[in-house]
């Protein structure tokens, strides 16, 4: 007999409010329907009423776990519409900051994911402490702890502070050790592995058909990464390899993110070593005016959660239309299919492995 149960609206390790309605037969999920929209703020409409550089703070509040990646995606879209080249050093600095942001975001995900599958609060506290070290680095570079708003047209609001390289080196060496510790701790723990391995399997073919993105896509064996396939900034000058796993289960998605953190650490080190001297400052805000009216631009960025695509129709003062392809929106849309046939308790393992941020889903 099929019973319909309501879960939520809750605030699981998804950062925001999600309601799930599950049809269960005994303990097996027959169907699942996510109800979203609790955090819908109409950002796409809102940006149409604001001038270009009034918008980055709104963009950052979409994905508040990795604000800088959205900030960057938006500013880069405006730059593309204006036809402005980013300064050479600014590209290197942005790459460093974005990869640090990725590490911070994945650390938060790791803590909450471990919580979701019953590894309560040990990893959570560890990961949050480590994340704060990365955030302190970002604070030194931008001046704000969480919402940075440090991208400017053509560059940044400020260059990296003196001594940033050494400090970042110390923090990264520490985090690198910690990642090994997390892997040892979690992968030897049956409490964690048994709730991750073989749960929520998404095949390669279905992953492509359902349009999932980011670590979810790469966890299903598709090696698509915007940083590689459509390289921006200096990713093509760095030795970067997209991380993939072929199993397509929750554990594969976990492993992809762990490997990505290690890869990000390598990228930051390499970028800091190769970074040229020069000017990284962006233009003052008053100078901003896209040259072409009704010019259509679209631009992809690999945020920690997947591919964020911004489709903008530019007007002279304000965006005429800005459409955002939120990576978690489409990952959540695939959740009913991933969850079908799993146990009720695994719903949260699956939602955790998708790394949902509801602000990003609802926009």
């Amino acid at each position, binding site marked *: 007999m099929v019973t319909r149960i309501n879960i939520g609206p809750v605030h699981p390790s998804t950062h925001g409010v999600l309601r799930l309605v599950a049809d269960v037969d005994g303990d097996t999920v027959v169907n699942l329907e996510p109800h979203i*929209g609790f955090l819908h703020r109409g950002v796409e409409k809102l940006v149409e009423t604001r001038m270009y550089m009034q918008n980055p703070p709104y963009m950052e509040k979409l994905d508040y776990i990795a604000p800088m990646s959205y900030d960057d995606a938006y500013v880069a879209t405006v730059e593309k519409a204006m036809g402005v080249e980013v300064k050479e050093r600014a590209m290197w600095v942005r790459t460093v900051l974005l990869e640090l942001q990725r590490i911070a975001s994945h650390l938060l995900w790791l803590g909450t994911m471990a919580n979701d599958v019953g590894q309560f609060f040990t990893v959570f506290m560890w990961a949050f402490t480590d994340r704060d070290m990365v955030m302190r680095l970002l604070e030194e570079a931008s001046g704000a702890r969480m919402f940075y708003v440090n991208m400017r047209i053509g560059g940044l609001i400020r260059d990296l502070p003196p001594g940033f390289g050494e400090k970042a080196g110390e923090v990264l060496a520490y985090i690198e050790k910690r990642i090994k510790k997390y892997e040892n701790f979690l992968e030897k723990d049956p409490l964690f592995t048994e709730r991750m391995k073989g749960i929520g399997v998404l095949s390669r073919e279905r992953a492509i058909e359902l349009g999932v993105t980011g670590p979810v896509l790469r966890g299903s064996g598709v090696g698509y990464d915007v940083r590689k396939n459509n390289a921006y900034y200096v990713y093509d000058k760095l030795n970067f390899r997209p991380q993939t796993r072929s199993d397509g289960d929750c554990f594969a998605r976990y492993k992809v993110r762990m490997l990505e953190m290690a890869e990000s650490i390598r990228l930051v080190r390499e970028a800091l070593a190769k970074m040229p001297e020069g000017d990284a400052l962006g233009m003052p805000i008053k100078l901003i005016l896209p040259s072409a009216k009704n010019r259509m631009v679209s631009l992809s960025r690999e945020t920690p959660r997947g591919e964020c695509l911004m489709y903008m129709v530019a007007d002279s003062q304000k965006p005429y239309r800005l459409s955002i392809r939120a990576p978690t929106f489409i990952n959540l849309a695939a959740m009913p299919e991933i969850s079908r046939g799993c146990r009720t308790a695994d719903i949260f393992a699956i939602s955790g492995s998708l790394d949902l941020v509801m602000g990003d889903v609802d926009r």
Partner: protein
Amino acid sequence: MKIERSELGKKAGELKAQGYSYLVKITAVDYEKYIEVVYMLRNLSENRDETLEVDVDPADAWVPTVIREFPAADWYEREMFEMFGIEIKGREARRLLLEKWNGKPAPLRKNFVWNAPYETSD
């Protein structure tokens, strides 16, 4: 690539057969005289993107569904119906996705008035 509304299903099927099997996004832009519906497709093995653009009349806004070719279209189409009032023909009607908003005009249309009283229903 600009195409007619009537060829959308055929063209989508053709592109899928050519390897454009990954749907990146469906979105729409209201240019007031017409609404442009944009389908962004990707060929993952050749790393190429293709865009299909369909113009529809704002007073008679509908497009045929592409959900059979691209299952990923499900939520995008529902979002577009809710936010642009573009009806999706050929698929079952589903619950509104984001705002439960069925007032007129749809929120992302350009003739939508800010702060005006609208009725919402669940």
